[in-house]
Structure formats: structure tokens, C-alpha cells
């Protein structure tokens, strides 16, 4: 096996590993894609749909906070440079 091939194989492995890690880290959200048969969200009278909506609101607020935070940080930097 020459070096180039080996590198390619290694890279393939690395990609595979990364994608598995990604898939695993995304796993908690995969229930969002669930269809009728394997249904977690529809269990308990669809209670988890309410939970998902509340989670979406919370995530939305967090993203908005991060956006505002970054705007403020930029402003603070400007003030610091100004002085």
C-alpha cells in the first residue's frame, strides 16, 4: 500500500468516524424526524409535542441572546478602542 492510498484510506476512516460522531451527537434530535410507526412524540397524548415547542422557544431565545450579546461585545470593543 503506497503512502497516498494509505492517506486516502485514513481520511475515509476519519470522515466515517466524524460522521458517526455527528450522527450520535444529533441523536437526541432525531426523534423530531420520527414517522408514524416509531413514535415517541405522539405517545402520552402527544405531550412531547408541547415539550418540543417549549424547547424550540427556549432555543430561539438563547440564539437571540447570543446575537444580542455579540452585538454588545462589538460595541464594547469600539468603546475600548475609542478611549
Amino acid at each position: 500500500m503506497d503512502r497516498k492510498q494509505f492517506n486516502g484510506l485514513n481520511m475515509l476512516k476519519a470522515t466515517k468516524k466524524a460522521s458517526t460522531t455527528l450522527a450520535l451527537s444529533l441523536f437526541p434530535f432525531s426523534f423530531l424526524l420520527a414517522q408514524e410507526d416509531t413514535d415517541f412524540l405522539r405517545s402520552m397524548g402527544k405531550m412531547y409535542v408541547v415539550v418540543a415547542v417549549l424547547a424550540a422557544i427556549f432555543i430561539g431565545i438563547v440564539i437571540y441572546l447570543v446575537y444580542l450579546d455579540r452585538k454588545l461585545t462589538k460595541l464594547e470593543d469600539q468603546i475600548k478602542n475609542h478611549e
Partner: protein
Amino acid sequence: MKYWWKALGVLIILYILLVGMLTPLKTGILEASPANLHTGQEATLTVKGYNSNFTLEKEKLRAWLKMDSTRAIAATRIDVVDDREVKLTFPIPAYLPVDQPVKDFTLLIDSPADGASVLPGGLVVTQDSIDTTKGDLLWVNADISQLHEKQAFTFPYRNILYETIRNTYYHVPMWMAMFIILTAGVVFSIRFLWKANPDDDRKAMALTNVGLFLGILGIVTGAIWAKYTWGKFWSWDVKQNMTAIALLIYGAYFVLRGSFEDPEKKARISAVFNIFAYASLVPLLYIIPKLTDSLHPGAGGNIAFGSQDLDNTMKLVFRPAIIGWTLIGLWIAEIILRTARLRERLLED
């Protein structure tokens, strides 16, 4: 307390989270099987209840198959299996007093403990041959009277919706808060053109920013809810489309703001656009959904969510929810406004 309204907003959100999540649903009927019955049959239905307590006072349990507003068949036998399951036996006559080959019936169960619960249109009876005169003769009408009502703080039970009826407090008010806040933004845009005070434009910008955010939240939460009640994230529903257009318009507002250097010009022209866009949006949000069929409540062909659904119990949570989300939105808008003021002061120095 200068910032009492922020505390009020937080308290209201806490209240709607607690009451909205902890209040149980009313008793309902999940399903009844078999769903297809025939005339001349002694039909035994296995009925599954939701939040039901069939074993409590089970002698007083009553059940009917309702054909229309005046005619019904009473159950002759009621066997309670457990709290969530009951077997009902109905004698279905050999002929029905209607000339339809297939007639749908509504199942109604009344219990002193749980109140009356309904499975609307869940059952059909097939007639082998139609003879309305014989049907009239054979019909033994049962009187539906003295229905009980559950004496507890509960939310209504709806098939398809089930527990997601609670999303009324977390999704619908987003949309109303968006509308209130965008309206406030337009008011400040008008005031800016009137008085030429640059602070008014900053207020309009901050409010519109928050309105856009609430709109996005409304669309995302609506999509999740839609997926598990109507089947798709995007159901080509009028109100979903309208909100998407509203977001496009306000996205354009911020694009417009970004394309000016001169702050006075930016403020003036974006105020003009804000007012014009808002005026073209209002007919969209209020009139067009009424013209077209919608899955949302208040439109034609929609049974999932009738007027009785927003009953007094729900109003107790829903109305504060609008105020609560609006106050939280105003709080965020205030933070954006203060940031913008600081930036302005920095530029002035």
C-alpha cells in the same frame, strides 16, 4: 420599582408555564372499535378513554349512540374493564329511519365522575337495505338528559389535538405579541416622521427586530405543532404563508436599513417603508385568511378547533399569555434600544 413590567412579564410567563402544563385535560374518548357496524346487530364496542375514571361510580355510567340532535340509541349493557376501558353493547335496529346506506354516529358517554365525553363521527353504521318506514317503527329513542359536567379545573379534550391543546399558550400568543409589537414599531415610525426625533426611529427599529424574532418563533413552533396534528411541517396553510410573507417584508426592512450610510436618511426612508409595508400587510393578515380555507381556527371547513374550545378555563391562561409574551418582547426591545443609543453616543463623540 421602575422595571415592574419586566417582573410582571416573567411572573405571567411562569404562571402560563405552570398552569398551562399542570392542568389536566378533560375526559375524552380515544377510540371505539369496531368502528364499522351493521344494522340488526347487537354491537359490542370496546371503548378506550383518555383521563377517564370509569370504575368510579360505574353503576351510574350511561352511554348513547347519537344519530342526530334528537335521536339516539342507549347502551343496554355497560361492562367496565378498568379506568381506561369499557365495553358497551348497543342493540342496532334492523332498519334505520334514514335513507342513507351509511350513517355516521356519535358516541356519547356520561359519568358523574368525569362528565360527558364525546367521540364525534367516529362510528358508521351500514344499512343492508333501506326502509325508512320500518326504521321509524323499529326505532326506540333514548332520551339524552341530565348530562354531568366535570367539576374541576381542566382544559378541553379534542381528538387529534390531545395534550397539544396546551400549545395554544405557547404558539398562538407569539403571533399576537408579534402583531402588537410590530404595530408599536409602526407607531414609532409615524412619530419619527412627525417629530423627527432620532430616538423614535431607534425604538421602531428595536421593536421591529423583536417582532421579526417573535414571528420566527411563531413559525417554528407552529411548524412543530402542525407536523403532529396536520401531518406536515408546512401544510400550505394560509396563516403559515401569511406569516412567512410578513417575515419577508420585515426582512426587507432590515436589508433597506443596511443599505444606507447617512443615519438621518436611513431613519427617514426606513420609516416610510415600514408604514407602507405594514399597511399592505394588514389586509393580508386579517382579510385573506377569512376568504380562503384554513386549517387554523376561525376559517371554513375546520372542525378541529371550534369556538367552544377556547373555553373560559383556556381564556384564563391564554389572555395573560399574550400580555406575558408581549412584555418579554418589550424587554428585549428595550435592550436593543439601549444598545443602539450607546452606539449613537459613541458615534457622536
